[in-house]
């Protein structure tokens, strides 16, 4: 009888210890709030615009880069800046030329949900929004109006035109950490102009950062980035994950 009691009590004791260890393990394995608010920032350069500018001989060039802050690995406030320009001669020999800078500000959201048993990863599947703006100068020259009846053909120039255009972008894309802290990613953007055309104004053919002045455009970025994370070393040195207070 005593032996049975010892067996049962030792079994229960083991069971309780195991449960406690398991609970403790569970607590350590799934820390609910281990990711700090600021996780460094990524400096990115868009390769797609550089490649397309050099490969496509269409008189359009563009280059851009950006900086992306990592907040809790969920929100990525982004600031992008670039320079773009176009030189175009139409079928009627009208010349259009522009050079200008553009800026975009916005935020990306990480859509990738972390599974409890998955390995920690820095790869992202993001969707986001941008608000873009560009103030730029452009020239439209050699605008000929043929008039055959009165023999009154006229040619006009519209030099030093200045305008500001604002647009928004819906962005979707991925980012992968290919080597330690080196990121590669692409995104597709749907761009829509907010600024309305002013009646009678000489409208630009190309808007830096937006593309052709069509009202809506598609864009593609292929980014290379380096992630700077000053606090990472500090976090790595910590042996135990911080636990949430109940």
């Amino acid at each position, binding site marked *: 009888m005593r032996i049975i009691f010892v067996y049962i009590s030792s079994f229960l004791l083991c069971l309780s210890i195991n449960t406690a260890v398991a609970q403790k393990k569970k607590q350590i394995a799934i820390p609910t709030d281990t990711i700090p608010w600021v996780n460094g920032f990524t400096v990115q350069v868009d390769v797609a615009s550089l490649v397309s500018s050099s490969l496509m001989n269409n008189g359009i060039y563009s280059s851009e880069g950006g900086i992306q802050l990592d907040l809790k690995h969920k929100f990525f406030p982004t600031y992008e800046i670039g320079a773009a320009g176009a030189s175009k001669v139409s079928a009627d020999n009208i010349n259009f030329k522009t050079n200008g800078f553009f800026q975009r500000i916005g935020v990306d959201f990480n859509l990738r949900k972390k599974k409890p048993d998955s390995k920690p990863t820095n790869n992202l599947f993001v969707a986001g929004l941008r608000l873009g703006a560009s103030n730029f100068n452009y020239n439209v020259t050699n605008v000929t109006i043929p008039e055959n009846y009165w023999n*009154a053909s006229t040619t006009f120039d519209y030099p030093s035109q200045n305008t500001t255009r604002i647009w928004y972008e819906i962005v979707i894309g991925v980012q992968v950490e290919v080597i330690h802290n080196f990121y590669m990613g692409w995104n597709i953007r749907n761009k829509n102009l907010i600024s309305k055309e002013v009646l009678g104004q000489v409208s630009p053919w190309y808007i830096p950062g937006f593309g052709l002045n069509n009202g809506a455009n598609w864009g593609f970025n*292929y980014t290379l980035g380096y992630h700077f994370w000053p606090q990472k070393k500090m976090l790595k040195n910590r042996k135990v994950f911080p636990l949430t207070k109940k």
Partner: protein
Amino acid sequence: MKKIIFIVLTFSILLNFSCATDDTCIQTKYVKLTVNFYLANPTDTIISNRIKVMSVDSLSVQGLRFDSITGLYQLVDSILYNNQKRVSTIDLPLNNQINIKRSTFKIRFNTIVDTMTVFHSNINDYLSLECGCIITHAIDTVITTNHFIDSARINIHDVNTINAENIRLYFDSAKIKINKSTTINANNIRLHK
């Protein structure tokens, strides 16, 4: 391996990605002054019969260029309407030159000749790089001689690519009756109900 597939796939997307631009203009650029003909019969007892759309036969229209040095009008070489039949509306080009503020037309109704002078301003309207620019006009005044034409009225001042009735030319029914009975041949005037 997944990373290599990702890189290859994205580069292939990048290479296929191209922005094709269409250089053809799909907008209409034809700016015309539209003039309609009306028969005025103010004494008619039925009100609806007092103004009626009218078409004329043997209509010829030609531009007259004003020479500021000599102070005389010269006929433009090409003819806009040459002995045209059953005409109730005419489309005329106004002079595009910036310093020219009037366009004059010689309108011949069979053998009777009238002139119509349109005073207008010219406005540059840039459409796009593909379409270029057009010159639209704003009519200020219209004056006519009154051999066959009774009067003229501006209906819509803006002359642009929109198909609109800009000027109404009225013909007096009494004058037509006189012309019919005398030397002027105005037999082929038709009235539209």
